[in-house]
């Protein structure tokens, strides 16, 4: 078996093993993404975010916390592309390092909220009965709550701070994932292979964890992508109000908040961090919309 034939098989969707089938599926998804300029722009923005976060020390001309009090609130120039803030720190470098905070927030929220929602939803859909009824009632109630306000209340109780803010956002974010996972589990539970595993005597826990949960993952990822823009906006809002990350952190919401004080004399201090938040949100929105169009062709074509 040479690479060329493997590639052809994957491209034509004629897999010879389950691993190849998975590759073929990825390929088809990539082809559809390629056909949608909007989704591709989203992918590019998010890829740029990840690359910048990884290479931040190499890309940033100054340290994110390097102060130069002789150089306060300087307008954009050749030395300081986006100007300096009230401590003479280079805003361009701080925005570059801020990508790390954004990725940290987004990934941690996803890692807390999604698995919790996935487990509850998959169990709920597979087990049915009173557990399903109870879980769905609670989820429906939680879905009707206002997210930002509840996150604010949680952070007030936990105390301000980046990790507390992340926990608060995750605590208000799980209900949609329960709904998604349950819907998938409901269709999976009637399939033949689940019946076969049941006959072989597998425990319920084993079936849920090893056979139901993996099949719920693709739709969960789409939903996560769609939610990320909202997560970034709420996190930035908490940082802006002073309840999320704390100064001197190079977090975009915090930078916006301290720049706001000098908005009338030094517009760049708040404008550029906001622009960064806006671009990343737009990236996630574009990718999310694109994925939805691909998975739900009824809407567009």
């Amino acid at each position, binding site marked *: 078996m040479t690479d060329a034939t493997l590639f052809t098989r994957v491209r034509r969707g004629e897999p010879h093993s389950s691993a190849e089938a998975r590759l073929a599926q990825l390929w088809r998804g990539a082809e559809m993404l390629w056909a949608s300029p909007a989704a591709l722009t989203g992918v590019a923005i998010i890829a740029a975010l990840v690359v910048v976060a990884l290479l931040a020390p190499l890309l940033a001309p100054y340290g994110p916390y390097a102060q130069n009090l002789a150089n306060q609130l300087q307008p954009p120039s050749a030395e300081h592309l986006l100007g300096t803030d009230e401590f003479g720190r280079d805003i361009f470098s701080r925005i570059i390092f801020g990508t790390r905070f954004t990725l940290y927030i987004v990934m941690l929220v996803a890692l807390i909220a999604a698995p919790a929602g996935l487990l509850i939803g998959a169990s709920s859909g597979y087990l049915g009965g009173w557990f399903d009824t109870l879980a769905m009632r609670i989820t429906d109630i939680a879905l009707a709550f206002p997210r930002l306000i509840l996150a604010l209340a949680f952070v007030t*109780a936990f105390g301000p701070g980046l990790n507390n803010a992340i926990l608060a956002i995750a605590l208000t974010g799980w209900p949609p994932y329960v709904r998604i996972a349950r819907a998938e589990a409901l269709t999976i539970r009637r399939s033949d292979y689940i019946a076969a595993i049941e006959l072989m005597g597998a425990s319920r826990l084993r079936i849920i964890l090893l056979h139901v949960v993996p099949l719920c993952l693709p739709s969960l990822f789409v939903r996560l992508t769609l939610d990320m*823009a909202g997560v970034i906006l709420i996190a930035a809002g908490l940082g*802006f*109000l002073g309840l999320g990350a704390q100064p001197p952190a190079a977090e975009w919401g915090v930078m916006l908040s301290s720049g706001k004080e000098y908005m009338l004399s030094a517009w760049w201090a708040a404008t550029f961090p906001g622009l960064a938040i*806006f671009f990343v949100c737009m990236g996630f929105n574009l990718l999310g919309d694109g994925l939805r169009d691909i998975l739900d062709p009824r*809407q567009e074509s």
Partner: protein
Amino acid sequence: MGHYARFGMFLLKQVAIILATFFGLILLTFVIGRVMPLDPVSAAVGPDVTQELYDQVYREMGLDQPIIVQFFDYVGSVLQFDFGRSFFTNQPVTRDIARVFPATLELALCGVLIGSLIGIPFGILAAVKRGTVIDGAVRVVMLIGYSAPVFWKGLLLLVVFYAALGWAGGPGRLSIYYDGLVPTRTGLLLIDTLLAGEWVIFKDAVSHIALPAISLGYGASAYIGRMTRSFMLDQLKQEYVGVARVKGLSERRVIFGHVLPNCAVQLVTTVALTFGILLEGAVLTETVFAWPGLGQYMTKAMFNADMNAVLGGTLVIGSIFVFLNLGSDILYRILDPRTRA
């Protein structure tokens, strides 16, 4: 079962869901307020007190009672609109909220008005001109609207239209020299100034509310416009549209006489939901514009660890949100004959 019986059942079920959700909201705020690490006694009396005073306040707040008794006390007082006393204003939270809420209501109402007036026409336009440059342009402007943080939009507007151009009023609801000149009737300044016949002050109020209302309204118009476009596209695919065209109706009659009325119910519920979202967004916007509303009140309370005030605000905004969210389902059922099938 007849149609009215079925509707009655639906109504009963929906009311039960709303009550259960309100109960869940009260339970959640109770958990946040009582079980969280914050010490409510210290928050009330400060850190440097004698043990006797501490114990006395501890008992007065009912904290020596079993947790379940505390919870039902809490439910009882919430149902009587008693949210306790705010530590930082030293007033009952209910009275504080009644004082600041009209400002937020006025802001959110203006925001949803702007959002609908812009979002619905442009959503219709984008759907009718689907796939053209016009559609693309409208969608890009909407994408920007719901990707940009509302407080950032507010700051930019403030810099451009207040600081640089001087077209709009600055922070606050009124210029200082007009403060207290108009008697409070509804609490909504735009209406109060009109009732008092004070044209000059009305204009001043408009110039102050314009920027915060636009920064909220832009986000709202993006959401409403997006939904309008998608509702319209769903309808335009239906067969009756072809029939109407074959009959020889003008395109204008087809769109405004047939397609749009079929979207009306969905649009009403969308606008209602948007209003709930704007009440939330107002919390962030008010900080930027020093708008003396519920959002600013809650933000101040947060920095003073004033849990009663924060939870009171959470309950008020949360209840309106829940009511709009679930109430719109009922509205939908009443207004749309197709759901009666």
